[in-house]
Structures are given as structure tokens and as C-alpha cells.
């Protein structure tokens, strides 16, 4: 039943390639526009301090075995002390993130700008694709698919007998959307504004990092067992010297 449909090469010339080119150009445009629109962020003292604190606590954890036990315990106490330890976040302050997000106008504006610059081009391009490039088979996917994908991939095609591997141009649009990320990182260098998928993941989990990670650091610091590595070093030094002298 699945005969091979022969697709006109004109489809390739006038649909697939222009669509990819347009998406690349729009991506580049978005990148530069977002660069222009990005307001300079005033670093907040508290955030910087907390970031540095986390780095220091992490260093303490990783290097714990290199300093004498007493120093390690003193530092751990300094960090996780109940009253005024640096990592200890009093319960009242914890539910801060949401309120802070909306009360800080700058940050809200930033987020909105980022979202807009992502959503609008996507929506426009999608509408354009639907309007111009619907109603025909655009490409054939090289592997067989089940019938469930029919509604997703063959949206404009109203024939139910066509093999599911033959898809409409909408699916080519989605393929490009996710696939061009690699191309953009080549052209525009890392950290470009077109990294939508990353931003989408970030949008869902926008907890304010510091307070949560402080608690996490404190917990991991409490777990650490101090196993002083230095005594072993004496024997290792002996071995090294013996090797050098032999």
C-alpha cells in the first residue's frame, strides 16, 4: 500500500530551502536585536555575596581533606551555625523569590523582553508557514512512523491513505526550530540569543537560586566527613624520594 510518492524537486527548491534560510536570517536578526535591547544589569551586592559564599563553601567541601581537622570544623561551624552562620537561611526569608520577582521592575522588564523576543518571531514564522506552505506534502522522513503521528505531522494533508512518513512543511519548521541551534552556535558563537530550548526550560524553573542553593550547600557541608589526607602524604613523600634517589 505504501507506494513511493515521487516528490517534485520544485518542492525542495521553493519550500525546504527558503524556509531554512528564512529561519536562519530571523535567528540572526533576533540575536542582534536582543543585544541592542539588553539593558546593563546592575549587579546586586547581596546576590554577588551569596554567589561567592557558595563558591567558598564548595571549595571547603572539596578541599576539606587538605586542612587540619580543627580548621575544618571551625569553618564548618562558621558556615552552618544556627544563629549567625552564613549559610543558614531563617525560615521567614525563604518564600522570597516570587515576591522579589514582581517587585523588582527591572527584572520583570528583562524577563518580558526576553520572552517577547522569543515568542513573537516564532509565532509570526509559524503563521507564515501555515499560510503559504500548507496543503501539500513537503518531505519524506527516512524512517517509518506509527499512525499516532499523523495528526501532528500531516496537518494540512487531508488524505488518510498517505504514509505517515510523508510530512507537511509544518514539521519541517519544527525540525529547523530545534535543529538550527547547533548552526547558530557556530555562526554567532556560544551564548547567543536564539537558544530557545534552554530558555524554555529555564522559564519553568525560575526559583531564585541563592536561597535554595544556600540551604543545599549547608546540608552537603553537614554531611562531609573530614578524613585528613595529610598523614598519607608523608609516606607518599618517602616513596617519591626513594624513587628519586634510586
Amino acid at each position, binding site marked *: 500500500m505504501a507506494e513511493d510518492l515521487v516528490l517534485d524537486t520544485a518542492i525542495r527548491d521553493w519550500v525546504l530551502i527558503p524556509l531554512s534560510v528564512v529561519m536562519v536570517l530571523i535567528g540572526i536578526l533576533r540575536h542582534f536585536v536582543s543585544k541592542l535591547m539588553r539593558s546593563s544589569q546592575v549587579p546586586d551586592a547581596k546576590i554577588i555575596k551569596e554567589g*561567592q559564599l557558595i563558591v567558598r563553601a564548595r571549595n571547603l567541601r572539596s578541599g576539606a581533606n587538605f*586542612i587540619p581537622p580543627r580548621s575544618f570544623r571551625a569553618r564548618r561551624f562558621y558556615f552552618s551555625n544556627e544563629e549567625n552562620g552564613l549559610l543558614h537561611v531563617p525560615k521567614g526569608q525563604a518564600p522570597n523569590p516570587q515576591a522579589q520577582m514582581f517587585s523588582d521592575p527591572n527584572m520583570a522588564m528583562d524577563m518580558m523582553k526576553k520572552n517577547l523576543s522569543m515568542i513573537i518571531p516564532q509565532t509570526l514564522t509559524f503563521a507564515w508557514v501555515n499560510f503559504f506552505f500548507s496543503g501539500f506534502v513537503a518531505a519524506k522522513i527516512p524512517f517509518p512512523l506509527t499512525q499516532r503521528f499523523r495528526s501532528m505531522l500531516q496537518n494540512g494533508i487531508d488524505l488518510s491513505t498517505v504514509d505517515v512518513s510523508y510530512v507537511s512543511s509544518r514539521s519541517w519548521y519544527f525540525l529547523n526550530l530545534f535543529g538550527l541551534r547547533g548552526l547558530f552556535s557556530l555562526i554567532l558563537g556560544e551564548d547567543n540569543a536564539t537558544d530557545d530550548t534552554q530558555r524554555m526550560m529555564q522559564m519553568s524553573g525560575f526559583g531564585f537560586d541563592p536561597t535554595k542553593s544556600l540551604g543545599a550547600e549547608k546540608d552537603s557541608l553537614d554531611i562531609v566527613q573530614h578524613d585528613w589526607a595529610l598523614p598519607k*602524604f*608523608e609516606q607518599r*613523600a618517602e616513596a*617519591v624520594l626513594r624513587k628519586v634517589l634510586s
Partner: protein
Amino acid sequence: MVSKTEETQLSNLETQVDNGGGGAWEYLSLVRKLKVRRSDRVLKHGLSILNDPKKRSSLGPDEWTLYEQVAVAAMDCQSLDVAKDCIKVLQKKFPESKRVGRLEGMLLEAKGAWAEAEKAYSSLLEDNPLDQVIHKRRVAMAKAQGNVSVAIEWLNKYLEIFMADHDAWRELAEIYVSLQMYKQAAFCYEELILSQSMVPLFHLAYADVLYTLGGLENLQNAKKYYASTIDLTGGKNTRALFGICLCSSAIGQIAKGRNKDDKESPELQSLAATALEREYKHKASDKLSLLTAALKGLKVPS
């Protein structure tokens, strides 16, 4: 810390540029990236690029970075006129810029006008209270004026906020050692060891401080850290070898009579002594007799 490959690359470029080959721009970019201090060469080669209008225009937007780099190098070499010219050019291009303001403050500092530089830095800090470089320049100024206690105070305040800055910890440790505040210096070196545990330099410095503090426990710890330095440097560090010998003899003197557990590393001292003798034979054979005499005086009284 500059890695070995980068160091060789830097010295290769240096010789190439000094002998008239091309590659001045790569050399300057590498110096900038590695943050090493080669001010005389930077000044010479940077000026040769900047004074040649063709080479200057071929740099494009990097031209201004080069101006900044040459200005700082000029201040380091006390060619204040060169520095002033560079800063003037930058000022014309970027009025109201924080980076240029910082360079102006540095120029005042280089001229020795401490009060005005202080004022400039404070005003810059008001607009931008989290600029690390300006904080550090203030500390450096206090230290240059000889006002070490003020330097310590500021450095401590800086470290309260930016506690992951290991260069600052190192500077603080050295200041404390210069003031003989060894306990505090030990704390700073511990911070450094925590953040960079595989750098033998910090183990060695920490061991030195512990040895200077004295007391049985500190001496034993010092011995352990000298051992770790030996381990990390493959036995090539002469100071660590000496440290082991001195520590062992000092421990032996204090723990005379008590049979302290020397089972951990009974042979370490003799091995270290032998290694020292071999090194002296290689490198300074005329001083070998001095060494043997000194080592004999250190022998642990059993």
C-alpha cells in the same frame, strides 16, 4: 597560575618579537589573557603598533583595548606622558566611561597624588560599589603609602563580599606574614589550599608559617605539609627538603624522652637529607661541605 604550555608559548613569542619577527599583537593578546606583568615589553611593542597608523587601523575595535593595556604598562614603567596621551585618546572616544575613570585614578596614583587618587576612587566606588578592581587599587595604594593596617582593614572588607577571590587571600596572607601575624596568615593559607589544593606553593607557604609558629602540633603539621609539597613537586623542591630536616630535628628536640610515634615516616628525614646532598652535588658542589656540616648539627638525638 600560568600553566607550563602557556609559559613556553609566552617565552617563544617573547623571543620572536624581541628579535624583530612579527607577532607583536599575538604577544600582547597573550599577555593580556594571562595577566602577566611584562610592562617594558608591552610598552615597547604596544607603542610601535600604536604609532603606526596603518597597523593601528588594522586592529579595528581592539585598538582601544591596546590603548588601555599600553597606558597601564606605561604607568608601571613610569612613562607618565605616554600614559597621559593614551588616556586622553580614550577619554575623547569614551567620555563618561567607568573604565577610563579607573585609568585616570591609576594615573593620579602613579604620579603620587595619593589624596586625589583616593577621592577619584571613592567617587567611582559610589557609582559602582561592586567594582573589584577599584577596591583592590585602594588596598594597593594604602600598602604603597606604608599604611599596612588600613590596607588590611580594606582587604578584609573586600573579602567579606568577594570571598572567593584567591588572589586577595594570597595578598592578605603575605601582608600578615610581613607583620608577623602568623595565626591569621595560617588561616589565609588554609583558604588558598582549600580552593587550589594541588598547587605546591601554598602547601609550602603554609608549612613555613606553621613551622614559624612552633609548638609540637604545629611542627608535626608543618612536617606533613612539607611532605605533601615534596609529593606534589616530585622531590625537586629544595626548601621542602630542608623543611623536613628542620622539622624532624625540632620535633625530636621537643619530644625528647617521649616516644612520639615516629612510625609514620622514620626514614623521611634521612631520605630528605640524602636528596639534599645529591642536589647540592649537582648544582652547588662547592657548598656541599657547608650542607653536610649543617645537616650533622640537625641530626635527631635518638
